[in-house]
C-alpha cells in the first residue's frame, strides 16, 4: 500500500451559513480503491460535505482532485471525475426512466450539436441492465416507487461513468433485496483500478462491513478519520451517539435465530 494514489483531498473544509458553523476544519482524503464511509448522527454535517464537494454551496478551505483545486475545474469536466447521488429525489415532470438515465451522458457530450455516439448507447443500456431497470426503461418516473427512483438515479450515475462516486445514503428507500444488490454492484464497480467511493451512511454495520476508511462527524467537526475499524470503535461511537451503539447492535443481532 506504499504507492497509494490520492484522488480527492479536502483540506480544512469549513461551511458557515449565517452565523452558524455547519462544518469546521474538516480534512480527509480518498485514494484509489478506497471506500470512505462518512458517519455520524443526524445534523452532524454529513450531507453538507457532499454538497461542498459537488460545489453546491460556498465553502472555505480547499478541495483538490489529484492536486488540482475543484473550483478551477469546469463543471462538465468535474462530472467526468466525480458523480454525486443526492438524497432527495422528486421529479417534477413525467420523464421516462431512459431519459433520466441518458442525461448522465451529458458530461461526455456537452456540445448540443454532437450526435448520440455508440458509446453513449451502450453505457446507458449497461447502466439500465446493471440496476435492473431495462424492463422499466420507457416507464414514466412519476409512477415509480421511492426505491425504483433511487435505482434510476444510480443508473444515471453509472452512465455518467465517473472515477469517484459520492453517495448520500445510497440505500435509502431500498428494501433488503435491492440493498444487497446495490452493495454488490458498488463493490463490483470499485474493483476496476482508479476508482473510489465516498458514501454517507447511517448503518454502522454496513460501514464496518464495506468501508476501508471512515470519517466520523459530530456537530460539524470531525471526530476521527482513518481506518474504518479504528475510527468507528466502541468508545468514540458511545461519545458521539450518547449510547452504546455496539452493544445495542450486537443485542439486536442476537435476537436473530
Amino acid at each position, binding site marked *: 500500500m506504499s504507492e497509494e494514489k490520492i484522488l480527492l483531498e479536502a483540506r480544512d473544509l469549513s461551511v458557515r451559513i449565517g452565523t452558524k458553523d455547519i462544518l469546521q476544519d474538516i480534512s480527509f482524503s480518498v485514494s484509489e480503491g478506497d471506500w470512505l464511509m462518512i458517519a455520524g448522527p443526524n445534523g452532524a454535517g454529513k450531507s453538507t460535505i457532499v454538497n461542498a464537494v459537488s460545489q*453546491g454551496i460556498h465553502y472555505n478551505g480547499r478541495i483538490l482532485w489529484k492536486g488540482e483545486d475543484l473550483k478551477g475545474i469546469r463543471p462538465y469536466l468535474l462530472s467526468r471525475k466525480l*458523480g454525486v447521488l443526492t438524497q432527495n429525489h422528486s421529479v*417534477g415532470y413525467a420523464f421516462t426512466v431512459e431519459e*433520466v438515465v*441518458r442525461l448522465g451522458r451529458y*458530461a461526455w457530450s*456537452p456540445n448540443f450539436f454532437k450526435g448520440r455516439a455508440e458509446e453513449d448507447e451502450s453505457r446507458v443500456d449497461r447502466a439500465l441492465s446493471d440496476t435492473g431497470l431495462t424492463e422499466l426503461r420507457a416507464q414514466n418516473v412519476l409512477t415509480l416507487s421511492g426505491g425504483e427512483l433511487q435505482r434510476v438515479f444510480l443508473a444515471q450515475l453509472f452512465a*455518467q461513468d465517473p472515477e469517484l462516486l459520492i453517495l448520500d445514503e445510497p440505500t435509502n428507500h431500498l428494501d433488503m433485496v435491492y440493498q444487497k444488490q446495490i452493495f454488490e454492484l458498488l463493490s463490483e464497480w470499485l474493483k476496476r483500478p482508479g476508482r473510489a467511493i465516498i458514501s454517507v451512511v447511517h448503518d454502522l454495520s454496513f460501514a464496518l462491513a464495506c468501508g476501508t476508511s471512515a470519517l466520523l462527524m459530530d456537530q460539524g467537526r470531525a471526530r476521527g478519520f482513518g481506518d474504518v475499524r479504528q475510527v468507528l470503535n466502541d468508545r468514540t461511537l458511545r461519545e458521539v451517539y450518547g449510547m452504546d451503539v455496539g452493544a445495542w447492535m450486537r443485542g439486536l443481532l442476537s435476537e436473530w435465530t
Partner: protein
Amino acid sequence: MSRQADSSKKSSRETFGLPAYLAFGLVTLFVFLLCVSVGSVSIPVKDTAGILIHALLGKAVPENAQTSILLSSRLPRVICVALTGASLAVGGAAMQGLLKNPLADGSTLGVSSGASLGAVLAIAFGIQVPFLPFAGTMVMAILFAFASLILILALAWRLDYSLSTNTIILIGVIFTMFINSVLSLVITFASDRLKSITFWTMGSLSGSSYANALVLLGALVICGGLILLHARELNAFAIGEDNARSIGVNVRRVRLTILIAVSALTGVCVSIGGSIAFVGLVTPHVVRMITGPNHRKLLPASLFGGACFLLLCDLAARIIVNPLQLPIGVVTSLIGAVVFVIIFWRARKEKGR
C-alpha cells in the same frame, strides 16, 4: 397500474424528425391563413393565399379594398400575433423547466407586469436610445422584466428555497397587483402620451406594423434560439437543480442565460403588444400532453403551439363582438385562468399521493 406491456421496448427518439416539424408547420400555416382571411371583412382562404403568394413573389397584386386591408393591416397584425405567441410560449416552457414548476410563467410570476411598467415609464419620461426609435421603450421593458424576475426569485428563494408552487403564485400575485397600481398611477399622470391601462394590462396587437414583426422575429431568433440550444440543460433542471449540477451542467451560467433570454423575449413582446397573460402557461401545458416533458421536443413544439393558440385567441377577440374588438388578453385570460386551476388542482393531487 398503468405500466405498459411493451415498456421494455426502446423508447422513441428524443428529438423530432422532419415529419413532425412538417405536421406542426402545416397546422400553423393553416391557422395563419385562416386568421388572415377571417375578420370584419372576410376574404376566401384561396384568394388570401393567392394574394400572399403574389405579394411574396413581388408580382403585381390587384388593387382593391380587400388587398389593401389584407396587406396593410391584417397581415402585419397576424404575423405579430404568431411571433408573440411563439415567443411567450417558448419563454414559458423554459421557465417551467428551469424552476421545475408547471405554473411558472411571465404572467403568473409578474414579469410581464414589470416589463409593462418599464415600457410605460420610458414613454412617460421620454427615455430614448439615441439613433434608434422605439428602442428606449423596449430596452426599459427588457430591463424591468429582468429586474422583476430577479426580485421575485430572490424573494421566493428567501421565503422558501424549494420554490413551491404556493410561494411562487403568492409572490406573483402580490407583485402584479403592486406593479399594476404603480402602472395606473403613471398612466393617470401621463395619459396624454400613453395608451390606455387596458392595453398594458390586457394587451392588444391591433395596429402593429411590419417593423414590429421584424423586431419580434429578431428577438425570437436570438433568444428563442438560445433557449432551444439549452434543451438538455433544461431537462436536467426540470428533474432537479441538484441533479443538473451532478451531471455537469454549469448551473449558474445556464440559469442566468435562460433568465436573460426569457426577460428579453417578455420585454420585447410587452413593449409591442402589452402584457398578454397565460400564453406561456397554457401552451407548454397542452403541448406537454402531446410531446412529453422532454425539452428537445417540448420547446420546438411550443413555438408552433404558442403561435396557433394566440392566433386563434386573436381571431376570437376580433370576431366575437364584431364590429367591436376585445383586447386579446381578455380571451387568453378567460382560457388561461381555467387551465391554471386545472394544473394547480393536479399538482396538489399529485403531492397528496
